[in-house]
């Protein structure tokens, strides 16, 4: 959810990445007890996409302006 929110609202991107990474670690450490790795990866990817867009946009602005 945080990942999807991060796409229109970039401010959520760091939280989506943090949350996605943390969830993935916990799922892997649980040795099958916890599920939802797909959602965690999706959140992580969405967060990374949002952060990437923000960084590209910012770098472009700084360079082009």
């Amino acid at each position, binding site marked *: 959810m945080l990942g*999807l929110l991060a*796409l229109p609202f970039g401010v959520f991107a760091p939280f989506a990445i943090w949350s996605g990474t943390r969830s993935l670690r916990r799922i892997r450490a649980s040795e099958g007890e916890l599920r939802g790795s797909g959602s965690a990866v999706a959140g992580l990817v969405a967060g990374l996409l949002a952060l990437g*867009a923000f960084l590209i*946009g*910012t770098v*472009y602005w700084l360079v082009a302006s």
Partner: protein
Amino acid sequence: MIGRVVVAALVFVVALATYPGAVLVSLATRVVPTAAAAGSGGTLPWLHVAHPTGGMPYIADEQGRLVLLHGAIPAGLLQFGPGLAQPFPIDPSAYEGDRCPAAAGWSRYPPLCHSDLQAMAALGFNSVRLPISWSLLEPQRGRFDEVYVARIAQVVEWARALRMYVIVDMHQNGYSYFVGPGPHVNLAYLSGAPAWATLTDGFPSQVYRDQRELNPAVFEATTNFWYDRDGIQDEYIAALAHLARRFKDDSAVVGYGVYNEPWPGWNLSPGFEDLLLFPFYRRVIDAITGAHDGLPCWSGFFMPAVCGYRDLGVDDRRHLMFLDTGLVREVTDFPTHLGLPVSSYPNLVLALHAYTHIYTIDTFRGEKVPNTDYPWGGYDQSYDFAEREAKAMDAALFVAEFGDDPSDDALILKSQLQQQEKRRLGFAFWTWTESGGSWGMFTSASGCLRAGRERLLARAYPRATADPQVTFHYDSDTGAFSLSATGRAGDAPTIVYVPAEDGGAIAISGAAASSTETAQDGSRIVTASPTGGQFGVTVAAGQIRLSGCP
């Protein structure tokens, strides 16, 4: 497995519809520029936006000279509330033969007449920003009022005869007076959309903190426009295309103000600007120029930022597109979004509304110039950022609106003009005449030209120069003017306008051949043709002869 595919598809679609897609489309516009058509053959020289390598884009004429537009903004073609009949005729026949009909007593603005444009030209204005109302242009959905279009064309014709350019500006204030009456709502301050395009969804019309935009009905109606609810944005684009088709071959129309002072409604910056406003601008440009930026999408309801717009067959590639910053930027004097490229169309102008110390947040805290804590960077803050925003968009910069209470002229108006001079920016002054208000060029009681405004705004300035790095300064207290430029032999001449008010002696120095012509109204035009090297034009300090009332 299916679940993972669904989640992946969801992330992809949402990413495409939001920032990642918006950034991709914006950057793609930088890859393949759309060619502007070379303008020639107009009564006035066609203007375009020049793009010097590594430099700031600027408005230029057919000879490549930087062109400065000085002008005012008459509100006499707008439709404000409270929804009674128009206070003055729309039919151009009422204005023929230099006739100027009287306005109804309740009207805040008098009608725009031929004599108004003559008076503007006498002050040295070479342009006029002409605000128009969508509600008058398309009072019924899909049906354009050709009488209103003819009225616009009449003003363009007057301007052309006076060698003035017209910026046709799709204006709005508080979205529309059709949001309806309510507590603290003054419908006489609202204009814009027709009734059929004002979708308030039952939200109450009530103004908070005495700001016309802080009204739930305005929030809702504006938001519905940005989300193209019921296809109203498509209708707006069609209305602009209708005008563009009418004036396609008219060089006196310098371009179009696409949307005045965009209010985000319920949306927040920076998403409002990056995902809604500037993509909307891109779609308007696509429709009128056939630029084909963005992805081909549906229309008729919400279009994400990646969406371009279908070519509406106007194929107008000679006019400038004036793109207002969001209204929140006007309040903060600070960029409110990423400032990504908008379109591959090269004739773009970022239209700044400069209201420092008038509508900036210091005034909402009750501070009054000069005792204010904001903007931290003073007047420079807004202009420094605006130059950076325009450069990032590869657009020229123009001060499409500024103005103030005459009692603040010595502080605010003078400072704004200094900034514009320093940065070689043209301007449009709000407002030309105002019946019941206090901001116009003329006193509301006697209708007399305010001498203080005449002193500041009827100024010497270079109308065109081949040197985009030209520096110049006009001292409105003494009438002294100095210009320094560099040119190669054979460069197009630098044209300097000296108002009739300024009788100081003109001198040319350095590498330029010159001539001076005096017009019937007493103004002078200096033509300085570079012979190779640096040259200067000066007007000596002397007595300024003002015709206005003290």
